[in-house]
């Protein structure tokens, strides 16, 4: 099974000064699957994503991408290797227009007609963005911003998609839509998705596997429906 994983986090420990945010974490995510990372506030979910994309350096352990150790690579090299990290709430460059934000997702090695085609694909997926392509991204609502960053991440044609709380601040109807879309993409393109969510119920509903983090440690790892059926675990860590 090990060689199947596109993304593997091995014994990762990340410290912020005296605080240990991640303590020997092992996580594996396979192509064509959505892997949910669950846990309460401060469990280390965001730190895990930031350690994978290189924004935070682990003090110990490693991050493997398709078997290659990326734990010392710079952020932009990890991005170029096919990891698209959508950070929580702050991914929009508000000073640029909607289309400029999107174009930034697709700078690496595509021809102009290819890019145009992919851009049109995103506009088709999110018609709200097409209407506002020339407007500054600061004028977008929370939901539209979320569409923008996800559309932009998909434009880069990533192998691994790291989503940090994509449902935050979105209306339930839009969350359902978004997760449905995500599921389709994963099934169609064999994307590897690591989904960080506080809303464990809806995350487990679309995920294949899940990990539960508590105080920087993995306390459970199993198939999504097994996790969702575990009453004890749900009450202790997942809050539903």
């Amino acid at each position, binding site marked *: 099974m090990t060689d199947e994983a596109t993304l593997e986090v091995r014994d990762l420990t990340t410290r912020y000064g005296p605080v240990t945010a991640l303590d020997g974490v092992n996580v594996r995510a396979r192509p064509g699957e959505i892997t949910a990372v669950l846990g309460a506030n401060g469990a280390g979910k965001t730190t895990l994503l930031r350690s994978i994309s290189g924004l935070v350096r682990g003090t110990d352990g490693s991050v493997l991408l398709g078997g290659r150790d990326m734990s010392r690579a710079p952020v932009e090299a990890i991005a170029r290797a096919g990891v*698209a990290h959508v*950070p929580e709430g702050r991914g929009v*460059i508000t000073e*640029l227009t909607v289309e400029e934000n999107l174009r930034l997702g697709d*700078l690496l090695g595509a021809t102009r007609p290819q890019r145009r085609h992919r851009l049109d694909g995103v506009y088709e997926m999110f018609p709200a963005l097409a209407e506002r392509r020339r407007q500054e991204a600061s004028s977008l609502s929370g939901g539209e911003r979320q569409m923008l960053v996800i559309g932009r991440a998909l434009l880069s044609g990533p192998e691994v998609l790291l989503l940090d709380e994509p449902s935050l601040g979105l209306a339930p109807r839009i969350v359902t839509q978004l997760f449905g879309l995500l599921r389709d993409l994963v099934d169609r393109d064999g994307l590897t998705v690591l989904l960080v969510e506080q809303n464990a119920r809806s995350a487990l509903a679309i995920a294949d596997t899940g990990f539960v983090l508590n105080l920087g440690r993995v306390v459970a790892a199993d198939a999504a429906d097994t996790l969702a059926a575990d009453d004890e675990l749900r009450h202790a860590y997942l809050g539903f």
Partner: protein
Amino acid sequence: MQQFLNVTLGGLSQGAIYAAFALALVLIWRATRIINFAQGSMAMFSTYIALVLIESGQSYWAGFAAALLAGLVLGALIERVVIRPVEGGPELNAVIVTLGLFVAIQALAAILFGASFESFPAPFGLSGFSVGEFTVAFTPFSAFVIGSVVVVMLALVALFRFTDIGLRMRASAFNQEVARLLGVRVGNMLTLGWAFAAVVGSLAGLLIAGGNLVHPAYMDPVIVYGFVAAVLGGLESPAGAVVGGLLIGLALSYVSGYLGSELVTLAALGILVAVLLVRPHGLFSRTTARRV
């Protein structure tokens, strides 16, 4: 009336130079949140390179091109070697480093090129055009000054608006973390930002020098005027820097023409204080808070 026309025309061509200089400051501020006090010294140094070439028998244009190229290299080199280590640290560190460079580059120029005044040629005539029986204070060289500043600005607008590299540079300036997550090599973009800024600064240095005397400190007043122009424009906005530069050029020209040239520096500082009191974010900035 004739004096007003003369003073206005003179102000516009000086203003174009201040605009270029202010633009250089704004480019660096936007990219790295650093006020580059060494901008004037860097421009002076590249102008001296042009002078050396011209005095060795090369054409003005060869010197002109070499100076812009020298600016490009100098800007990139200084960012990589001197500025990079203090980027992201306390703001005061970067300020002190650029002030140190300001002095060091002038000292180096004095050692290499001498500290005496030397005349710098102009590629076009320096006597005013005649309109009817009057001769106005607008020379072929003034036209060249304004024209070259306009060309450089249009080139920058095109670069930032229409090219991928320009988009990457803007993304790096506005949000480094997001830019890096999208695979932009932010470090290279910052180096490029300094390099382009230094080219624009060098252009200002060459234009100020044309038909005048140069010495290692000849850019010092321009730093003050360019800085006032940049603050007037809000420090964030390239368009603001251009308008600020033209306004400062005009204002100082009126002060010089009607009140006396000895008051020019004082007037520039007066404008700076007035702007900071009345509109601390400048005429064009949209940001609501700024620490300077």
